């Protein structure tokens, strides 16, 4: 397969922008509504508190495993992946 470096970088960049948007959303945006979210209680947890203590963290972990896969797919499809 001939490497298509231009397509590789374009898709890599789009994935980066998506990841940064998700990161900003779960790092900052959700927590701006902590007061409103705290009115909702689940299993004793006020939701706003829960998001900052567990919710966002779980999403960060899941995001990174998904990212490793997604970026690897891009690398393979554009022919710039390392040999297995």
């Amino acid at each position, binding site marked *: 397969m001939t490497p298509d470096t231009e397509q590789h970088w374009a898709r*890599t960049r789009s994935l980066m922008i998506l*990841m940064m948007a998700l990161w900003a959303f779960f790092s900052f945006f959700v927590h*701006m509504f902590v007061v409103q979210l*705290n009115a909702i209680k689940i299993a004793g947890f006020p939701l*706003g508190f829960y998001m900052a203590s567990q919710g966002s963290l779980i999403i960060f972990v899941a995001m990174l*495993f998904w990212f*490793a896969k997604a*970026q690897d797919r891009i690398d393979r499809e554009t022919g710039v992946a*390392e040999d297995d």
Partner: protein
Amino acid sequence: MANASADKGSFLNNLGRIYALYTGGFFGFIFLVGILEQLGVGQKYLGYMFMGLTILVYAFIGVVSRTSDVGEYYVAGRTVPAFYNGMATGADWMSAASFIGMAGTLFLLGYDGLAFVLGWTGGYVLVAVLIAPFLRKFGAYTVPDFLAARYGGNAARLCGVIVLLACSFTYVVAQIFGTGLIAQRFLDMNFELACFVGLMGILVCSMLGGMKAVTWTQVAQYIVLIVAYLIPVVWMSAKKFGIPVPQFTYGQALQQIATLEQEFVQKGLAAASAPTHTAPFTRYSPANYFWLIFCLMVGTASLPHVLMRYFTTPSVREARQSVAWSLLFIFILYFTAPAYAAFSKLEVYSTLIGKNVADLPAWVFNWGKLGLITICGKSATAAADVVAACKALPGHAGLLRLQDFVINTDVVVISTPEIAGLPYVITGLVAAGGLAAALSTADGLLLALANALSHDIYYKMINPNAPTKQRLVISRVLLVVVAVLAAWTASTRPTDIVAMVAWAFSLAAGGLFPALVLGVWWKRTTKQGAIAGILAGFGVTLFYLVITRYWPHIGVQYFGMVSNLNPITGAPLISPEAMKAALSNPALLDGPVTAAHPLQSRVGWFNINNISSAAFGLPVGFVVMYVVSLMTPAPSAELQRFIDEVRKPRGKTLMDEKGGLVASH
């Protein structure tokens, strides 16, 4: 040689079995110590057993991993699988502050403390997406290696080294300080001596085998620290709520805390304005809360001792996976810390507050004697003293009020097993875990420091023709020198040291982040732009930190700083009259000021706390780098090709074993 590589192969092939055996052995050991405790062996000996055995294991790994190969010394031969590198990064990352201090901070700050939980995890998204895979492809030995290659030479390298030294040295001093505290408390050792004993523990792990030894020791240390962190809180959860999943059950603890908080107010045991555990923005204003999260995250993505861990994976692909594993292993501790805080807060609230000050439990005085628990404004040294101190307060009814009780944040994790009435073996285990956390972080930091001095300064700048053997000798000598210097600094008990660790994040963020990110993502970044950006970003961050902490009056007089605001009322922390008085008092106009100075860390620009100094440094760094880059000629076609190579995973690393550039020479 053939023998050695066959051994290496069999070690790497059997990692799962080796570490499973080790984990099983560790559980067996805990069980054995538990039995010895039941048989009546003294607490001091149990403490010695925990500390002694774990340090022996780390030293053993350090000695068997000794190496005389440069690649193994600097990047563990790039053979560390993603999963194990994740564990090693977890231990590298989680310091004494995470293990010992985090739950205490959450105990004290409630919701606002979660800025640390978020900040110290979310940064890994930036590491994985923006930086680590590209540095791995480049094939750096150190972070300044990349700066030198991308920004044409030793000027950029030197800037990188300066930032690295500034953020890593205070950090390593804090780790040795932490080791000293633990050894002092659990082994009854003199503190200064304890610092140097901790130093020996660190050196045996890192000196002989460099990165290779540190990697495999850190994996072992991760297992110890995570087991030690989880067991007490799982135990408490099972004891209180019948389910051994504290991360789930502490919702109930939060509810009970909320109920108790209301009761205290009704009974007059707490002020109506006392902040509740889950209420946001009682310690930090919203802006400070979010800037703190931001600075910690960006700092995470710029700290050299973390980034260099991703140089050790076999491929770029595994470097990415490895960041995900790292975050998972870090997450396990960080999502447990709020549970730890909630359980110990509930324990304190339900067993102490509202009780007669004359009959407090014995553990209060154990810690009070060390000055770590204060009641009614005095160290709680003995029952009679506490009663006297509370009687001296006007209108005190003899029942312990919420505001009477102050606990040092470092004590929460160490004392909780004792407070909750768990056997002493658990306390010993927690001490071993804290020690593992401090030692593993210190190992990584010392290696980053020593490598910057030996590889970047000595080999790349002073003597590029040095033979391999000499390079490794110099590395080891510098490692010992830095370590001794750090231990000596720690033994002088610098009081600000814990606060300084938080500074490291801002310094790394302001100094390194723009150069690392733009170096990969914006081809137009030039050498001049990068150097100007690093100096400006680092300079502004350092300026804000140093002025607000040590020369606040200069900040007010000459740099337009004003008092920060109270996050709840919005009123200035220092009233205009108090400010005037402070500025006209000649005794207060001398710097550097001490922690007792009325203005220290309470003035600034736009009400931003100095812990988030990169809020200024980072934007300045980016803007300067952008503007200066556009004003200087674009990087050469050769350099543009170099960046293209860094961006795609396929192909060899761009730096050879001698540290020269493969692509451009």
